[in-house]
């Protein structure tokens, strides 16, 4: 089956800073993958690169069957990104926002209303201007706008942040349902227990790199989970380099 996400030695720049310095990642359709790593490891940039928002300047990047380096535009409309920014217009109401973003991608008004209901935003709350919402409510509105689009690839950057217990449960249910329906999900989260319960496998990113050892789905899914950063110490680390270039093993002393 065609992979939903296929990255090889992908490099992305923020200005001149290589936030992604060579990422290898394969994700099959319907998988839920947890991306973990310390602050500044490149989790957010990885998700944004998969969304086609940050250009991949070197390496291979194929998402949902499209080469990101050629036609990122075709990918963008099929992904849902839940980022630090909530993608809402402050001066519009919740309903205005969710309806605008869902109609923009061709979803119906009923989709928008269903999504709002799912996040508990129906009724009085729907007609409140976003600027007056609490952070958690804002987050719910953002999630509603995203799921109304029915994305095929969910890119969730700290989806649990700012939500109450009920909200987190709703997010988890939404993610499981979406994956069961065939959507692919990448989650970056520091809520490790919750996210691990959700995810089929865990991938560790550090220094803008995911070593190629951590990408083959079956090994990690079945074997003992390699959470600890020390896990790689024994393997050595294969630097894939540019596509076609002979990989060179750089031993760790």
């Amino acid at each position, binding site marked *: 089956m065609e992979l939903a996400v296929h990255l090889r030695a992908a490099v992305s720049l923020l200005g001149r800073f290589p936030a992604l310095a060579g990422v290898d990642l394969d994700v099959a359709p319907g998988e839920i993958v947890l991306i973990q790593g310390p602050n500044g490891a490149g989790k957010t940039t990885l998700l944004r690169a998969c969304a086609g928002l940050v250009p991949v300047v070197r390496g291979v990047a194929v998402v949902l069957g499209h080469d990101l380096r050629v036609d990122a535009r075709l990918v963008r409309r099929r992904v849902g990104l839940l980022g630090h920014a909530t993608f809402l217009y402050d001066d519009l109401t919740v309903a205005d926002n969710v309806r605008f973003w869902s109609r923009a991608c061709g979803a119906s008004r009923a989709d928008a209303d269903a999504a709002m209901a799912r996040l508990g935003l129906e009724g009085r709350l729907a007609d409140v201007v976003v600027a007056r919402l609490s952070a958690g409510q804002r987050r719910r509105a953002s999630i509603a706008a995203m799921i109304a689009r029915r994305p095929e690839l969910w890119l969730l950057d700290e989806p649990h942040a700012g939500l109450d217990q009920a909200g987190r449960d709703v997010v988890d249910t939404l993610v499981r349902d979406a994956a069961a329906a065939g959507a692919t999900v990448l989650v970056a989260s520091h809520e490790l227990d919750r996210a691990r319960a959700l995810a089929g496998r865990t991938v560790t990113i550090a220094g803008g790199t995911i070593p190629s050892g951590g990408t083959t789905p079956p090994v990690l899914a079945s074997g003992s989970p390699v959470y600890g950063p020390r896990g*790689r110490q024994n393997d050595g680390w294969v*630097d894939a380099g540019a596509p076609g270039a002979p990989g060179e093993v750089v031993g760790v002393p």
Partner: protein
Amino acid sequence: MTSPAPSGTEPSGTAAGAGAPAHTGSQGTRVLGSVTAAGLVMLSLFALVFSPAEADQGDAVRLMYIHVPTAVVAFLAFFVTAAGSALWLWKKSRWWDLVAASSAEIGVIFTALTLVTGMVWGRPIWGVYWTWDARLTSTALLLLLFLGYLAIRRVPAEPDVRNRRAAFAGLIAVVDVPIVHYSVNWWNSLHQEPTITRLDPSIDGLMLFTLMLGIVVFLLLYLWLLVHRFRLAWLEEQLASSDLAAALVERRAEADEATISAPPAPSSAAKASGTIAEASR
């Protein structure tokens, strides 16, 4: 007028090694620079000594011998910028982007000089530095348009992003030039006499020769400057991309630091740097 033609006799930079001279000159630019320098000396002699004073303007006419050539070069430079922008969008070759950028910078200098020499000429002849003459006004707007272009180039961004932004800014500005010219011309003709004829058509032979010489010499000067500016821009690009290779190494080293709880191992980073620098070319 002085022309700092590159002298090939100077000792080359040492760090670059292998006897390669460390500057933006080459055999071709040295010849071009020498010819330009000689041309500038000749132009100065003809413009300031040999050519006669004009009947009406007196010696102020001598300013025309640099005013007209700077104007010609300025417009040519902006035409090259527009062509470079369009070709970049078409071919996506960074070569064209660098040509557009280099040419715009030279164009801004020459446009400013066109305005300065025009004003210095206008003061004795018209009695004022500035008049809302159609040509002066549209040249001033042109200068502002391309200052905007250079400003948008200077905003730091990823190269591809910056190039696209600059290419569109250049094209938007160029599209405006005919409209500006037309509207200013029209506006002007309603209120005052059409542009004062600056040189009589029945121009003295020596004066015409001097003017033509000026245009040719300034075109050579433009070409010489463009080649050097282009090479400088090329060097800047090279440095930026080699910085990328170094930055990649540094970035990946963060993973080592996270992996190994021991203090960062410089030997590992140094060893990796060779491979990654090669791989990223």
